[in-house]
Each structure stands twice: as structure tokens, then as C-alpha cells.
């Protein structure tokens, strides 16, 4: 009974977010149906698109937070995603495929949010400043994962707890772990090792 009530509240809350952004924030498009079990916060001048049938869950006290840092920023989230505690900070382009699942994690395509201060300290002269992030379909980003700029996570991959990816390419259906993430392990091999125990 309670779960039905929670679902109803989430659908109503999600519908409220869909209507609110369509009416008052023309750069943000959330497609119906959208289930919001936790707070959704989207701000910034860039464009954000969330496809249909997505759900936002509460994970470690956080819901969904998307911050675009420039008018050219584009965030695209695919259909049927389950986003829990996800924070996206985008200066260029962040895309997340369909059926992706996230726990409390951070996707940030730029090294620092305060561009003016970092440019004063000449960070941009020495290191790549911002680069797009592409996350494929059916990816699972587990707890406290951080995905930084110029990273591509292919379909069906899993980002292990605490993994931090920067300038990284993961093959499809692999387990990515480590800080910084180095070689990713094919999940079929992981299953084989587990079966052999």
C-alpha cells in the first residue's frame, strides 16, 4: 500500500517537474512520464534533455542535480534511466544512454567549476580544460563513482565503487575500477573467475 502511494506521489511530483520546466525553463526538457522519488534540481544556461520513463531516486540524501556552466553546455539523458544521487556538472557535452542506473556519483566534464579563478591560476594553460563525457546504454555507475572529462563508457559496463575515470575509454561490457581507473576487466572474465571458485 505504501509503495503504491510512494509511486503515485513520485509520478505526481515528476509531472510537476515536467510542467514546471516546460513552462518556466525553456532550455530544459523532461519527457513524460517522469518519476521523482527525490528532489530534482536543474540550473544553468545550457540545455538539458531527459527522455521518457526516467526515475530519480534518493541515494545518500541526494536526488538529481544538473548544473550547466555555459550556454553551449548540453546534457542528454536517455530513456528508462534510474538515477539515484547523481550530480552532473557540464560545460561542454554530457550524454547518458538508455537504461543507465546510477548510485550517488558525480559526472563532471571540467576540472573546476570556477572558470575565472582557475584561469587566473593558469590551469587551462597547462591541462585540458573541459571535454565531453559519453556514457552508453545499460551502464551501472555504482556508489561514489566520478566520471571526468574526455571519458567514454561503452554499453553494459559497470563502474565499480569509488572509481574515478579521467580521459578514459572503457570497452563494452567491462568492469571499470580504480582511482584513477586503469585497465578495465571484461565482465565475462569476472563471471568466469567467480564460477571457478
Amino acid at each position: 500500500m505504501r509503495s503504491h502511494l510512494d509511486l503515485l506521489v513520485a509520478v505526481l511530483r515528476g509531472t510537476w517537474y515536467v510542467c514546471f520546466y516546460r513552462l518556466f525553463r525553456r532550455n530544459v526538457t523532461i519527457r513524460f512520464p517522469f518519476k521523482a522519488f527525490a528532489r530534482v534540481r536543474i540550473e544553468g544556461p545550457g540545455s538539458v534533455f531527459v527522455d521518457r520513463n526516467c526515475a530519480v531516486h534518493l541515494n545518500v540524501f541526494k536526488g538529481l542535480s544538473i548544473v550547466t556552466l555555459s550556454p553551449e553546455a548540453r546534457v542528454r539523458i536517455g530513456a528508462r534511466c534510474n538515477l539515484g544521487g547523481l550530480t552532473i556538472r557540464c560545460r561542454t557535452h554530457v550524454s547518458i544512454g538508455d537504461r543507465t542506473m546510477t548510485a550517488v556519483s558525480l559526472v563532471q566534464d571540467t576540472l573546476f567549476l570556477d572558470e575565472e579563478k582557475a584561469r587566473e591560476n593558469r590551469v587551462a594553460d597547462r591541462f585540458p580544460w573541459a571535454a565531453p563525457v559519453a556514457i552508453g546504454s545499460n551502464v551501472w555507475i555504482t556508489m561514489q563513482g566520478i566520471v571526468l572529462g574526455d571519458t567514454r563508457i561503452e554499453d553494459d559496463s559497470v563502474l565499480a565503487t569509488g572509481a574515478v575515470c579521467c580521459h578514459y575509454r572503457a570497452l563494452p561490457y567491462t568492469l571499470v575500477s580504480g582511482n584513477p581507473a586503469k585497465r578495465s576487466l571484461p565482465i565475462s572474465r569476472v563471471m568466469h573467475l567467480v564460477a571457478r571458485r
Partner: protein
Amino acid sequence: MKDWIARLRGDLFRLRVRFFHKRFTAGPGLRIYRRFRFDGQGSVRIGRNCRIDGIRGDDSQYVCLDTLAPEALIVIGDNASLYAARIVAKYQVTMQDDCLIEESGIVDTDFHAIERGRQAPAGESKEACRISIGNRVCVGARSCILKGVTIGDDVVVAPGTIVSTSVRAGSFVRGNPGRCATSTEDRDGGE
């Protein structure tokens, strides 16, 4: 408008600490954009033209400056920008000018020992545990700077880094534990 309000908040805060918190000094030009908490009986000195702010999109985090002992000292240089930075000092944390700290923790003690009793850690002292951060250091989101670390000038700490050893000037540090990298690129991941 926001800048004006932040500057006003900063001036009012400086007035307040001048009368009620003698161990806290803040230089002129302080701007407070979001909630700011400080606690403890130690001394805190903030330089000129500093910025205290939160993280965009997240109201639950804010700048905290905690001192755990009356002898503890936190020094923040001029033109620093703190975005939801949490600084905890039992001994001494000093930061030079033009630093940028985003959503990170700086702690100069382990709080507990790893033995079963979880007593206060042995072997900690000001000389061993103090944290020293140089000029123009940028610390990315969700990083931690641990005890006894000296960070040189012009260091960039990538998001998600746990800095447990000292860092020479001009480096780029990432990883857990933090290691200097010659560039931000790491191309051997799965290809």
C-alpha cells in the same frame, strides 16, 4: 546584486567577529555567498578579498572551519575561493594566496587510532601533521587532503583525489592514493 549582498554579509561578519570572536580575524573584501560555519577555540585568519561560497546545485554542503584545540590555527591567504570546503585543524592548516578549493576536505588529524581501542592516534604532533598549501593551488571536487601534507605552488589536484603525501610545485595530482601525473591523459584503459 549577489556580489553586493555577499560583500555586505562579509563586512557584517567581520564586524561580528571583531567583537564576539577575538580569535577569528578576516581581512577586508571578504564575500560570503552561502552558509558559513566555524567552530572551536582555535585561531582562524582569513586574508583579503576571499570568497566563501557553496557548490552550485547542492544546498547541503557549505564551508566549515573547525578547530579542535585552543592551539589550533587555520590561516587562509589572500584572494582564496572556498566552495563548500571543509577544513578541520587540530594543529595547523595554512594556505597561501589565490587558492581554489572546491567541495573538498582538509583534515590534519586521523581522529582515531587503527587499534581496537580507537583511542587518540599516537605519534601525532604539529610538526608531523600540519598541512601547508602553497600559492595558486586548485583542489577539485570531492578530494581529501590528509595530515602532514605539504603542497607546493601551482599544484592542480584532480577531482576525487586523496592526497596523502606531499606534492612538489607545479604538479598534477590524481588518484587514491594521490600520485603526480605528467599529464591528465591515461589511454591504456581497455583499449
